[in-house]
């Protein structure tokens, strides 16, 4: 990185008790219980934010301990600080730039060897470290007896036993943290010995680095020197950007690296990695006693024997996803209705209070109606988040990637791409967000780009209605076909992109399969809540803005001269009804029938007026404007208007079709979908044929993702470029396929 590094903070103060709230960062391997510890320490006092420039959630909490305030930052889970994944870069940058007073490394005591690898790297970074020997109860149960005092002495790092899920060891940990923060304990007195030859070379580079006193104050020279030997691009960039004698330093470092390579027959980074592991093994031999295993296989191995079985693996994965899917929609649909009804009631209440006019229409139809329509989908997204959080916390995600990798690799995708795609069949928003488990940015971008092609829960009612209207006998089969069509387009598009836009070597597939752990309900809910909060924060403003724009486009300009005098007609209906009711004594049922007829006539009138409004509105005009292009796919202006509105949220297509067809905004009941007025009205429209209906369904499946998905994709990918591309390519692809289907259908009939 040739660009100069940003300004680095001033040199650390000489040690003295801190007179401000110490900033403590929590680091650790994934699955080491870092989040549980964070929750145990901070309780509900948490705030989800973002690390600058990246999509990794930054969770910050505050706590009070022995009269002192402590600010706690949850760093992303990492195995190392190599700076290859976003998580590693975030962790490294946070430690180097923000200089937390103490970093607590959460260590899985059942898996010390690999967990201590990160601890040593944190120590190398020159930051005060405290180790939390977490899951110490589980380690004891497994016969792993850790002499924590001895280990702490060997590594030169304070270690405290904890059981985060039960909050055990919290106080001791915080006391150790404050001891380090206040300078009563030192975790930097020693560091691992890399072996004689390496230490010599390290020393040479250190001497070269020391020539710039300013640089020496800003960075841990020990760390920079070791990273230069490893030829770490990030550390080289720091030297190039900030060191006065950068050229000499890099020359010394390159020579040293060359020498190491010749001497050891392998690169310095491998040698250093081996030294770290060798050092850890040495320390563990002295401080840990492991009871010989009694021959009993552990639970994880037993479960994996089934779950990862060569033949059962894939079917089990599909069943797991089906279960989550079923739960989501079983519970989610009623909840969705409830939310929508709630918004409807709110609109009704407000409508009753406000005087008629543009303001009322804006608040009731534009904001409450629009946002309600989109948020109606929130319960489903929330339940999917819940399912995902559970699978993540229990340790299944890596297994899913393991069993699906082979198949996805055929299309140039990564095993971890399957979960986002599968989740997108529920809702693309959590789908896009779950693409985070892909550590390689290229794989992640690719997966996000194709996720919205799946049949999501919002497209479902639209496609189902069209299936019922035009293929009543084969509706279920058609629907299933379109569902598969979504997968097919995603895979093929993914393969095409992989071979064009995202060419290059496969990213490494080196993935831990963590031991299964039953998460606590509270842990899963907190996890879900963080995801949901992130969704609302990211998509909220976009949803509101899109709702207002769509409402305005459908409502303005107002018609000044209607083709008929609707008010007069309404008065006429009222007059006729009153006259009929005023007649002789009518039986009760006859009276009710007349009133029903009046209501129907008035609603019909209102709907005719709405159609006329819609036709004259900006959206209507735009619908007509694009007709010459869309006609090739068999779409008239009414459909175009509905498709416009579908960009806000796909399920809105139905209610907009209702408006342009003069049926009011009511959505058809799913039970009698084939008999619903909209279904029969569309079926009766001469503009439609099975070919144009199929073209429309395919178009709806593919074209521009909803605004919430675009907003989340923008956040996840960090720029407007990819969402814009996503909207563009899906629109073109949808149009091409819809035209092809419609034209072929016309030729055949």
């Amino acid at each position, binding site marked *: 990185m040739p660009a100069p590094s940003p300004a680095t903070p001033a040199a650390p103060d000489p040690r003295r008790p801190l007179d401000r709230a110490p900033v403590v960062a929590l680091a650790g391997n994934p699955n080491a219980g870092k989040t549980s510890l964070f929750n145990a320490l901070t309780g509900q006092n948490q705030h989800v934010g973002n690390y600058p420039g990246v999509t990794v959630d930054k969770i910050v909490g505050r706590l009070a301990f022995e009269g002192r305030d402590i600010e706690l930052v949850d760093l992303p889970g990492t195995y190392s600080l190599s700076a290859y994944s976003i998580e590693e870069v975030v962790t490294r940058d946070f430690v180097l730039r923000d200089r937390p007073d103490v970093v607590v490394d959460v260590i899985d005591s059942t898996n010390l060897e690999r967990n201590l690898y990160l601890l040593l790297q944190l120590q190398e970074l020159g930051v005060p470290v405290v180790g939390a020997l977490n899951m110490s109860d589980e380690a004891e149960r497994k016969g792993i007896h850790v002499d924590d005092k001895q280990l702490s002495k060997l590594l030169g790092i304070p270690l405290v036993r904890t059981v985060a899920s039960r909050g055990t060891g919290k106080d001791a940990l915080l006391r150790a943290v404050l001891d380090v923060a206040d300078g009563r304990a030192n975790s930097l007195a020693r560091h691992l010995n890399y072996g004689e030859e390496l230490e010599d070379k390290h020393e040479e580079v250190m001497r070269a680095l020391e020539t710039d006193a300013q640089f020496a104050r800003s960075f841990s020279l020990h760390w920079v020197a070791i990273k230069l030997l490893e030829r770490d691009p990030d550390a080289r960039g720091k030297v190039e950007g900030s060191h006065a004698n950068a050229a000499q330093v890099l020359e010394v470092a390159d020579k040293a690296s060359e020498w190491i390579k010749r001497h050891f027959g392998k690169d310095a980074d491998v040698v250093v990695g081996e030294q770290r592991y060798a050092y850890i093994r040495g320390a563990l031999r002295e401080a840990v006693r492991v009871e010989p295993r009694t021959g009993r296989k552990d639970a994880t191995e037993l479960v994996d024997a089934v779950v990862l079985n060569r033949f059962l693996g894939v079917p089990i994965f599909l069943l797991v996803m089906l279960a989550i899917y079923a739960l989501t929609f079983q519970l989610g649909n009623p909840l969705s209705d409830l939310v929508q009804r709630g918004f409807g009631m709110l609109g009704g209440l407000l409508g009753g209070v406000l005087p008629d006019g543009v303001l009322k229409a804006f608040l009731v139809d534009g904001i409450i109606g629009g946002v309600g329509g989109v948020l109606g989908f929130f319960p489903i997204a929330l339940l999917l988040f819940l399912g995902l959080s559970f699978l993540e916390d229990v340790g299944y995600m890596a297994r899913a990637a393991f069993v699906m990798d*082979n198949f996805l690799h055929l299309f140039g995708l990564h095993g971890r791409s399957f979960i986002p795609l599968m989740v997108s069949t529920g809702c693309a928003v959590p789908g896009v967000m779950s693409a985070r488990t892909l550590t390689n940015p290229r794989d992640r971008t690719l997966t996000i780009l194709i996720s919205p092609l799946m049949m999501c829960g919002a497209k479902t009612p639209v496609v189902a209605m069209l299936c019922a209207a035009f293929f009543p006998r084969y509706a279920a089969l058609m629907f299933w076909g379109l569902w598969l069509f979504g997968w097919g387009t995603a895979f093929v598009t993914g393969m095409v992109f992989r071979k064009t836009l995202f060419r290059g070597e496969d990213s490494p*597939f*080196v993935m831990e399969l963590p031991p299964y752990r039953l998460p606590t309900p509270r842990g899963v809910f907190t996890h879900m809540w963080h995801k949901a909060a992130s969704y609302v924060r990211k998509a909220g403003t976009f949803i509101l803005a899109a709702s207002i724009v769509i409402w305005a486009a459908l409502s303005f300009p107002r018609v000044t001269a209607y083709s008929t005098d609707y008010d007069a007609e309404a008065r006429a209906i009222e007059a006729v009804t009153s006259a009929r009711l005023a007649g002789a004594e009518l039986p009760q049922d006859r009276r009710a029938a007349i009133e029903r007829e009046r209501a129907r006539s008035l609603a019909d009138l209102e709907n005719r007026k709405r159609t006329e409004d819609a036709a004259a509105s900006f959206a209507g005009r735009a619908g007509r404007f694009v007709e010459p292009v869309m006609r090739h796919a068999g779409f008239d202006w009414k459909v175009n208007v509905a498709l416009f509105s579908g960009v806000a949220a796909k399920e809105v297509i139905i209610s907009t079709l209702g408006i342009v067809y003069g049926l009011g905004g009511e959505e058809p009941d799913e039970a009698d979908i084939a008999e619903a007025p909209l279904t029969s009205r569309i079926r009766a429209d001469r503009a439609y044929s099975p070919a144009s209906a199929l073209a429309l369904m395919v178009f709806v499946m593919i074209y521009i993702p909803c605004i919430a998905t675009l907003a989340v994709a923008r956040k996840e990918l960090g720029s407007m470029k990819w969402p814009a591309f996503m909207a563009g390519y899906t629109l073109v692809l949808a149009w091409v396929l819809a035209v092809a289907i419609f034209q072929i259908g016309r030729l055949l009939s």
Partner: protein
Amino acid sequence: MTLDQIAVGNDFVISSLFAQGEIRRRLVDMGFVSGARGRLLRKALLGGPIEVSLGTWRVAVRLTEARGIEVVGSDARA
């Protein structure tokens, strides 16, 4: 021999890494260093990816990655 040639259930000791760049870095970080002992636990449906245990943890790698890991195998089942 390389890791992909080890049969399911067999133990191995890593002797060196051929892999380069990011793959090698990842492998080292996950404990694939010379001298490390492991066992091949299973292979996925079409022969890959493979799952190995290294010390107290389990790691999955694709066959491509496994071909970059030189190992000494042993048939002795523990």
